[in-house]
């Protein structure tokens, strides 16, 4: 292919793709940092005895799981400023939309994990006089983490690829950068390169997740 013979072009392609990958990773990391705890909070609300809290949580999950992420992204960037009359930064809108959406999924994964812990664990903690906080942080949560690793791993890897949606509010993540070069150079080589970049990222993540899973393999 002619494109490959022009090294300066290949270099600029790579640097553009690298820049795009950094944006992709930034959205990915920020989303995780906030969505993981927020998901837990929503899950706790869902499981709380208060009808109001669990109702709110159910409504939250219903909305964010029930509408396309793309739509939520567009609402966040174009809708919210319209209603509130304020300007919102593109990156901020993107991360906010992603973390709210992913928190809904994470909360359901947490719930599955928490509800799969046998009742006997709570009873043992109770008769040992452990407080609710100690029971949750030292007994339940560590076991939940092991149980939810596989479904969480799925979501965490899906998130890498979902970040491509931010093109809709003109953030230049990896796929958008590839498309720009495709349009400029009239070749599809950049798409192939984008695939390789995505595979590198998800491949490294898969490895990392395997390491973490092995760390938890010491007990059943």
């Amino acid at each position, binding site marked *: 292919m002619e494109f490959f013979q022009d090294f300066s072009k290949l270099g600029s392609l790579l640097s553009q793709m690298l820049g795009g990958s950094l944006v992709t990773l930034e959205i990915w990391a920020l989303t995780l940092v906030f969505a993981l705890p927020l998901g837990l909070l929503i899950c706790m609300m869902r499981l709380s005895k208060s009808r109001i809290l669990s109702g709110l949580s159910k409504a939250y999950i219903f909305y964010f799981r029930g509408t396309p992420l793309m739509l939520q992204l567009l609402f966040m960037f174009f809708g919210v400023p319209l209603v509130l009359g304020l300007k919102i930064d593109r990156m901020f809108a993107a991360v906010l939309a992603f973390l709210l959406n992913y928190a809904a999924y994470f909360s359901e994964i947490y719930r599955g994990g928490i509800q799969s812990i*046998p009742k*006997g*664990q709570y*009873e*043992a903690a*109770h*008769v*040992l*006089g*452990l*407080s609710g906080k*100690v029971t949750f942080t*030292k*007994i339940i949560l*560590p*076991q939940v983490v*092991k149980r939810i690793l596989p479904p969480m791993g799925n979501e965490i890897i899906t998130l890498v690829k979902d970040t491509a949606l931010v093109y809709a509010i003109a953030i230049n993540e990896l796929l958008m950068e590839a498309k720009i070069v495709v349009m400029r150079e009239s070749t599809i080589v950049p798409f192939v390169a984008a695939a390789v970049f995505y595979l590198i990222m998800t491949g490294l993540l898969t490895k990392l997740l395997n390491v973490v899973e092995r760390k938890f393999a*010491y*007990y*059943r």
Partner: protein
Amino acid sequence: MLKATNIRKKFGKLEVLKGVDLEVNKGDVIAIIGPSGSGKSTFLRCVNLLESVDGGCLEIDGEYLFREQGGRIIFPEPDKKRALRKRLGMVFQDFNLFPHLSVMQNLTLAPLQEQNADRDAIEHSCRELLRKVGLSEKEKSYPCELSGGQQQRVAIARALALKPEILCFDEPTSALDPELTGEVLAVMKQLASEHMTMVVVTHEMGFAGEVANEVVFMDGGVVVERGTPSQVLRNPSQQRTRDFMSKLLTV
């Protein structure tokens, strides 16, 4: 030292405890026996506050852990409740060890939560308990690496680590293969010989006959008969007790 009066409990419409009384004195070993569904496990769970009760009163040394007032169950304030609750220990049928913690961590976790906990002293006494149940070399193992009998012995040590005054056992050998029940019963016998106060819900008639000083026979949510082992097990006065005993013998 422990007095349960007129304990009543319903699961939906089903009345599983129809007013059960029990008095435990220091050094007592009380075996509660009866057919499955008789309410004996539920009673023990109520005493340990694992089930809410619909009526009745529970006292430890004259201080109530719950009591009935105007048709409602009231508890003392949380700190007092926890302090009283701590005087009871509980061993479950399914062990309920914490799988993600080592044997030693299972034992030390609860004592370490207490104020001014001294880690060295706690670890020392827990090691002592492990030696007592014959598992000194397993302190770094995880529950999944142990046999059922070993797990139940860890569970007993874990309950003892909090220095309870009364230790309750809910069918401690029912989940074990027959060849493993002996090691658990041996530990329990040893505790009895050290004058540990124990309430044991069990199907082990041999253990009840040999170790208990009082046997309580429950059926249909009530105490049918109580007395010394020789009275209840060998010379029951009630027809229902005789039926139960004869069924056991024919098996």
